């Protein structure tokens, strides 16, 4: 090396100071002041020039840190951002990054804790915001969840009645059940206010697109059972157990309708 090593802070000292200043929500100068340091405290560490001083140079990184993550989260939670408005969403993310500093190497995970964080916030009298965030996050997570070969109607039609009844199946991995206290369809479609009406949403991926819909109590019982390997005959029994007061033939017909819908939705795979 052509130059002699110069005296300076250690690598660990540099990174500790810069990390604190670059991730401070106030920007670099106020963060320096909060540490009791003068505005020119960085001049001996960072080489500035007449175009940009040391603080201004570090502020570039501070802004990139926050706005890169803000952009990613605005893209991942568009309905939450729209419901809150730009300024409130900005403030929410500022608080979120202080409470839940990113710790995963992938930006995909930076919003993973936002729904839980929202549950701890007052939410301006809108407790459904956390549920909306959870639904948007679930869509994101299922977009690239594990693949599975879906069962097709053609494959089922080729089975004998006995083989059909005893065929072991289960739900594809790219599905989730979300219990909600609010009915969110209006706000999901871009208008209106959610009503306080408990429901369970089935969220799943078909091909490259993630969908969701509300399910009935009886279908929910079947879905929970189909999270593990189960035969189609057992699924019909689960349905019957959840729906009393109907004759057997009608129950079986209803159960088959649900199973046919699952197959149409590419929700079932061989276990």
């Amino acid at each position, binding site marked *: 090396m052509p130059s002699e090593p110069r005296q300076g802070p250690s690598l660990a000292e540099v990174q500790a100071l810069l990390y604190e200043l670059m991730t401070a929500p106030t920007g670099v100068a106020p963060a320096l002041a909060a540490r009791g340091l003068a505005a020119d405290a960085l001049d001996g560490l960072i080489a500035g020039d007449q175009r940009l001083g040391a603080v201004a140079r570090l502020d*570039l990184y501070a802004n990139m840190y926050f706005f890169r993550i803000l952009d990613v989260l605005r893209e991942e939670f568009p309905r939450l951002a729209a419901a809150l408005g730009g300024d409130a969403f900005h403030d929410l993310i500022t608080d979120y990054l202080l409470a839940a500093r990113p710790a995963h190497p992938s930006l995909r995970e930076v919003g993973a804790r936002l729904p839980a964080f929202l549950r701890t916030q007052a939410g301006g009298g809108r407790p459904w915001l956390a549920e909306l965030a959870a639904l948007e996050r679930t869509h994101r997570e299922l977009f690239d969840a594990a693949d599975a070969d879906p069962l097709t109607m053609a494959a089922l039609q080729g089975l004998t009645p006995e083989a059909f009844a005893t065929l072991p199946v289960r739900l594809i991995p790219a599905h989730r059940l979300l219990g909600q206290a609010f009915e969110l369809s209006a706000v999901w479609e871009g208008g209106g206010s959610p009503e306080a009406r408990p429901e369970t949403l089935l969220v799943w991926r078909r091909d490259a697109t993630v969908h969701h819909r509300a399910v009935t109590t009886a279908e929910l019982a079947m879905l929970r059972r189909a999270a593990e390997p189960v035969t189609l005959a057992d699924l019909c029994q689960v349905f019957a157990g959840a729906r009393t007061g109907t004759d057997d033939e009608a129950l079986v017909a209803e159960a088959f309708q649900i199973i046919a819908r699952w197959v149409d939705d590419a929700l079932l795979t061989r276990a």
Partner: protein
Amino acid sequence: MRRFPHLGHGIGLRPPHYQPLLQALRAARSPLERPVDWVEIISENFMVEGGNPRAVLRRIRAEVPVVMHGVSLSLGSVDPLDEQYLEALRALARDVEPAWISDHLCWSSFGGHTGHDLWPLPFTEEALDHVAARVLTVQERLQRPVLIENVSSYLQFAHAGITEWEFLSALVARTGCGLLLDVNNVFVSAHNHGFSAQAFLEGLPPDSVGQIHLAGHRDEGTHLLDTHDHPVCDGVWDLYRAAVTRFGGVATLIERDEDIPPLDEVVAESRRARALEREVLGALEPVGGPTVIPGVGARAHAL
């Protein structure tokens, strides 16, 4: 044989181009008709279990070589190397069989937290010792030499006693790694810090560069900002010409991450890079197509 084969000219694989690129690759009747010779992926975007990104990658990989470019090794951080991340990188490499794996000369994590940025290092002996040890560990884990990229930077440290190109050269000598020379980053950092971009190129070992990045940036008045949202500018093309003159034919990639234009526009820039390389090397050495290396080219079957 070169340590890092000249794959030809490629582009970064981005979601808006998934389908048009796949269609164009499949429509090509010969390698010469392909819109690109190879593609580069951002490793972290494909460290997922399934879905469309992995499906598209499998199909693209069946057509052309793929290079894995990461942003999260955090080679310069004083935090321990992230073993879970390294394992995920290894698993992805087993699946993709990339021509090579690259990451950046920077730090991006501290205290167990990530910044999702490429923060600059002080170019000191201490930092060199630290980064070199970590590059050796990574290469051992991945069982291959890696390429290290110079980043765009907006600040330099007053106590740095080494230039960036001296730091990179020493890193190559100590670890056997290669360099991913980002010509746009050299251009941006040279402007922001007032050093000579040509001196940067001349300071690197001639046989160390395995890949080149070309990209666009924005002039913010007080500084240049590496945004990847513009076409490659004339100054960067000129510097690329100087790089080809010094390093010869090197696998070259167009990076575009924001305001992504239609595929044809990015491919046109890639073809411009190919034409410029041929123009320079035509006068210096024989020019052929991309080097064909067994196990590196397109695969006969999708993953």
